[in-house]
């Protein structure tokens, strides 16, 4: 394209320079060429305009508003607001929406620049300048003809002076004609100068180069926007996908989820209160591995349905054991490990007091969650006639999940010895739960797992529609659905 534009320019100069020796052929050739340039410019302009997403000629703000990217951005931000900041999708929508808006701004600026520096000159060339040049050329051709005829007449007159008689009159006439020739000459020269000036004004190739430069620049800027937003989006994604409760430190999990009691702990306790309290060998009998895995995954993402696990208290108990076991640090902590062991070795009459002292040293989060669990286990032990799980039995099967030595693994034998001590620590705590933790515990802490019907004799009816965990569907907490969910064994 560049060459096509340049060629007529090169041609354009020379014919004007030799205008006096007018050559009809080249004349026509040039005009054809000019016309061709005009048509090409016209078409290019037209197609280029249709490439623009904004409306040509509109002001910057209006253009920005009407860009598809802007409307997309607005839709995303709006959607983000509706979904809420406490959901991954809502937050993502917001971040992405803002990014799209910045992209829209870049696009708008780019299009404005293209319009001003490429499209307008192109339009000028096709619609104004070339027609003008052609007009000018016609004018020039006419002037050249005028000049030629004036010159011919003058030459004629000069000849007749030599051969003629009335010299004076003829001389006067010749002089007159000479003036006409000079005048025509002047006009030709004048026209030539303006023609040349028009050509000089339109050196097109820098504009086209600019088009590419502008486009490259636009893409670079957009890339910068994308790259600057990418880490933020990545961070968002990470902060939400790394949300599993299993295997995450207690403090971190509580902080991130804004909870007081760990989600798996509360969920499992609430489920077991509903359907597991009469189950023989709860926490002892192994759960189906696939069911357990599924439940753990459900608790991790806290968006799945939990109803199906009601009928399988052993899976629920297994998930609770797993959660405690997979904590990076045991619920009863590493740093109090020695103190716990020491306390368990005290004489029976001093043991409770010693254990209480250690218990009091637990970090707040650990203490709160241990209290919650112990209160639940004590309640489970109340039904030990049916479920066979006495405080002793519970501490045998669950104790090793509450406290273990940091060195376990390298010293497996020590771990075996540890389990024995742990039983001696956990059993009295469950046995005397109300002495260790005098205040009553409301198991339904967050309200996420409970149904708001006070009709039954205990308030632990559950709503296992997990949508409520994400607080995305608050309406789902209501009655009949939950009723179908409850399965009493």
């Amino acid at each position, binding site marked *: 394209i560049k060459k096509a534009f340049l060629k007529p320019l090169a041609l354009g100069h020379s014919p004007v320079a030799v205008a006096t020796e007018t050559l009809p052929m080249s004349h026509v050739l040039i005009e054809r060429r000019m016309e061709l340039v005009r048509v090409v410019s016209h078409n290019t302009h037209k197609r280029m305009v249709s490439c623009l997403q904004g409306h040509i000629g509109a002001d910057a703000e209006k253009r920005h508003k009407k860009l598809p990217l802007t409307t997309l951005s607005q839709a995303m931000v709006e959607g983000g607001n509706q979904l809420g900041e406490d959901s991954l999708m809502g937050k993502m929508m917001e971040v992405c929406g803002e990014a799209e808006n910045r992209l829209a701004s870049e696009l708008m600026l780019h299009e404005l620049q293209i319009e001003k520096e490429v499209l307008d000159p192109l339009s000028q060339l096709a619609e104004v300048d070339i027609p003008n040049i052609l007009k000018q050329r016609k004018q020039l051709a006419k002037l050249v003809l005028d000049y030629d005829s004036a010159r011919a007449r003058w030459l004629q007159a000069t000849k007749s002076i030599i051969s003629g008689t009335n010299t004076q009159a003829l001389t006067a006439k010749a002089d007159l004609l000479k003036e006409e020739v000079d005048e025509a000459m002047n006009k030709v020269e004048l026209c030539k100068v303006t023609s040349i000036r028009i050509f000089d004004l339109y050196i097109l190739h820098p504009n086209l180069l600019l088009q590419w430069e502008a486009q490259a620049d636009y893409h670079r800027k957009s890339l910068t926007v994308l790259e600057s937003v990418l880490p933020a989006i990545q961070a968002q994604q990470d902060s939400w996908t790394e949300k599993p409760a299993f295997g995450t430190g207690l403090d971190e999990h509580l902080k991130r989820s804004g909870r007081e009691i760990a989600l798996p702990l509360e969920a499992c306790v609430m489920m077991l209160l509903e359907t597991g309290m009469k189950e023989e060998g709860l926490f*002892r009998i*192994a759960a189906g*591995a696939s069911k357990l895995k599924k439940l753990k995954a459900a608790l991790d993402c806290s968006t799945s349905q939990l109803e199906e696990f009601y009928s399988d208290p052993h899976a629920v108990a297994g998930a609770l054991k797993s959660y405690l076991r997979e904590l990076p640090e045991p619920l009863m902590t590493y740093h109090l490990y020695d103190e716990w062991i020491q306390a368990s070795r005290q004489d029976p009459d001093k043991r409770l007091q010693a254990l209480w002292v250690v218990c009091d040293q637990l970090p707040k989060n650990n203490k709160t969650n241990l209290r919650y669990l112990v209160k639940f286990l004590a309640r489970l032990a109340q039904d030990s006639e049916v479920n066979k799980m006495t405080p002793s039995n519970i501490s*045998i099967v669950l104790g090793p999940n509450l406290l273990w030595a940091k060195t376990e693994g390298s010293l*497996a034998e020590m*771990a075996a010895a540890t389990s*024995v001590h742990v039983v001696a620590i956990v059993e009295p705590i469950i046995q005397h739960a109300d002495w260790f933790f005098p205040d009553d515990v409301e198991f339904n802490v967050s309200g996420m797992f409970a149904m708001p019907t006070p009709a039954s004799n205990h308030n632990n009816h559950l709503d296992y529609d997990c949508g409520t965990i994400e607080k995305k569907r608050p309406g789902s907490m209501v009655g009949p659905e939950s009723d179908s969910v409850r399965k009493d064994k």
Partner: protein
Amino acid sequence: MPEQSNDYRVVVFGAGGVGKSSLVLRFVKGTFRDTYIPTVEDTYRQVISCDKSVCTLQITDTTGSHQFPAMQRLSISKGHAFILVYSITSRQSLEELKPIYQQVLAIKGSTESIPIMLVGNKSDEMAQREVETKEGEAQATAWKCAFMETSAKTNSNVKELFQELLALEKKRDMSLSIDGKRSGKQKRADKLKGKCSVM
């Protein structure tokens, strides 16, 4: 381990509540308790005849309720023979044995020269049966090990179980009877939980 040459170690694995302790107690003490007490880990010892002499049969009753991989590995690497117990009333308990068998296989390399018994306990509870005898046999065939259904409660096949296990050991010639009397020198070596298994 200086006593290695003399001790013969049997490890009992299985899910919680399938009756590992009951089987071991029935065999060692001849009693059955109807109480419900999970095991942490107990070890029982008994003198048996071995290669025309005597040696100590050491039976480790493991916990079924919480698997500590490190402890399990240790038990397997120290064990000479294994009893894998499930309850015929729980299909799940048979499933639970699969990872344990794989673990034994991984640590011992090959199970061909290792005596292993797959045991379906609680054979008296026919009404609650979930695992057919044929299924137990099929699993044993797949694992190339011996199979037996037992009842610690009714003392069915318990002694036979240990007899057959010892008979599977080809490196030593072992028998339960010494002087026709069994419980001569039995003792609890690791009395891990006082009140849990003293009858």
